[in-house]
């Protein structure tokens, strides 16, 4: 078994808001091995972005993070000072954001921004830094790399900017890469190219990757393992084949029935739907978080904490008291 890059156990985030305490992330446990891609998938407000920010130690200052275990290559991060964390960020773990235009600083050139993590974390000379920056740009498929160093972010197209972001994230050879909706702002043809590049580089750098996304198509094509989040909890986790082949949580099944699939969902027919809205995460919540929107809800769904239970194969777990019914035919993969 490959070395575990990241091990997280019982990660919770609390944020005081007007009206009480918001619990956007509750008891999240996950692991990422070298060379593995874990996708965290869910809709807006499910806590997937805050999970990734809390791993990086980038939560808003009023938020409080708790974890029984949060280790990067065996090194515990939970008690680390802000100073120690900033030595790790951008160096041993780095992040790619959704909108490269807002995450690149418009006032600095591409070259300056690529050099920053190197200057912060290594003792390379200026020439070596420059060489490394050019090498990285070429590696992410940017032509005329040397001349791009003097350009500003606004002079690049969206796809190129995202390539620069990827180069920045990988320039210090991190052990863990967290990508938060890396292709959501891009056109579909560019999306395919960027996903290709990320998969290729991940193999080459042998890093662990966490991919945060709402796009079930991207997850299916990229992820080795999947964690489905709903209302702050992981409701189902397993390999991509398990999640898509034998979805066991009613929410996962509902999500999969919602998306039109060329060649599989019949045009003109109704798509599946999940009625209702995401519950408020302010205050404590009893029972299954999905109970109010679930078609199969039973009285016992509303009592106590629902634990994860084993599913169809090894590593497949889901948070539901009901026995998995056979997935409806229209959702079954071909």
């Amino acid at each position, binding site marked *: 078994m490959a070395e575990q890059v990241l091990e997280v156990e019982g990660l919770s985030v609390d944020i005081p808001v007007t009206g009480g305490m918001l619990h*956007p992330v509750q008891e999240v446990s996950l692991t990422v091995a070298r060379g593995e891609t874990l996708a965290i998938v869910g809709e807006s*407000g499910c806590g997937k*972005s*805050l999970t990734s920010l809390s791993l990086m130690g*980038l939560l808003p200052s009023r938020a409080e993070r708790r974890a029984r275990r949060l280790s990067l290559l065996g090194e515990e991060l939970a008690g680390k000072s802000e100073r120690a964390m900033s030595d790790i960020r951008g160096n041993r773990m780095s992040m790619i954001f959704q*909108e490269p235009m807002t995450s690149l600083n418009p006032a600095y050139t591409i070259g300056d921004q690529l050099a920053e993590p190197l200057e912060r974390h290594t003792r390379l000379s200026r020439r070596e830094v420059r060489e490394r920056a050019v090498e990285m740009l070429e590696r992410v498929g940017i032509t005329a790399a040397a001349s791009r160093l003097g350009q500003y972010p606004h002079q690049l197209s969206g796809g190129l900017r995202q390539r620069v972001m990827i180069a920045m994230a990988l320039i210090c050879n991190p052990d863990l890469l967290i990508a938060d909706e890396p292709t959501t702002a891009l056109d579909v043809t560019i999306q395919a190219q960027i996903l290709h590049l990320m998969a290729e580089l991940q193999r080459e750098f042998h890093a662990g990757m966490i991919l945060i996304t709402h796009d079930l198509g991207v997850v299916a094509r990229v992820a080795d393992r999947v964690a489905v989040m709903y209302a702050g909890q992981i409701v189902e986790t397993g390999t991509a084949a398990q999640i898509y082949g034998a979805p066991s949580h009613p929410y996962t099944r509902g999500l999969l029935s919602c998306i039109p699939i060329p060649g599989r969902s019949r045009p003109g027919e109704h798509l599946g739907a999940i009625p209702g809205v995401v519950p408020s995460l302010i205050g404590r919540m009893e029972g299954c978080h999905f109970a109010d929107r679930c078609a199969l809800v039973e009285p016992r769904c509303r009592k106590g904490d629902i634990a994860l239970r084993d599913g169809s194969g090894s590593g497949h777990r889901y948070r539901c008291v009901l026995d998995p019914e056979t997935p409806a035919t229209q959702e079954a993969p071909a």
Partner: protein
Amino acid sequence: MAVTDPVTGAAEAVLAPSPAARMRGRAFGHAGFVLGAVILIGIFAMALLAPMVAPHDPFDQVLDRKLIPPVWFDSAKATWEHPLGTDQLGRDYLSRLLYGARISLLIGFAAMLISMVIGTAIGVAGGYFGGRVDMVCNFIITTRLSLPVVLVAIAVVSLVGSSLSVVIWVLGLLIWDRFAVVMRAATMQLRGRDFVTAAEAIGCSRARIILSEIMPNVMNSLIVVATVEMAHAILLEAALSFLGLGVQPPEPSWGLMISEAKGLMFFDGWLIAIPGAALFLLVLSINLLGDGLRDVTAPENRS
């Protein structure tokens, strides 16, 4: 940005309070807003009720009772008949202060209204129509910004003579620049929003779009600028009156009261301190109110 989205997204609920209810809640929780409002309402009430509460006629000169110090002074002359004393012409200082509040508020409010109309018209027109119209509006704004307000006011007043209405018009015609700049930026930002495009697609006239789609959304900034400009106008009036170019004696204006007392500054300092403190309180309360309004109406704009 992606960092804050999950928080608000999770908190999204169907039964969120209406914008007005949320604003009320924030207003009463905002110390600056409440303090500013209380002081301003107090001054406003005193100005309004001046004929009833003033102990004396502000113009009555009683020369054998001049320069009585306020009651808290340890002096044989101090008397409760003149709580704030009298000036060098024996006029009751409290009465003059109360009547002076009327002048300050009247000038501040009227000049602010005039400048609001001019500035909003220029700003909204430039921001909404863009292109050539905006170029012209921008030119007008730039021209105005290059004029020194006090110098122009002094020149005009000394040319046409000074009176209450002249001061109001001069100030109103000079201080609309901030209205124009802020309204132009706010309108431009709204111009690109889809609800404006939707109104155009529905076939609404331009007047309707400006009045009923854009104006309600720029009201917040308009009110905030209005408070700032009102304070600005009051201070300018005081300055002009101090220079003898504003309100003319014997009208009681706070700026004029300071001016009249300047010869006695070292002997009877309270003559300057009292109208000065009143001016300070009024401007402070208006600014507190304006700052509060900005926070109350658009909390998302706070950094």
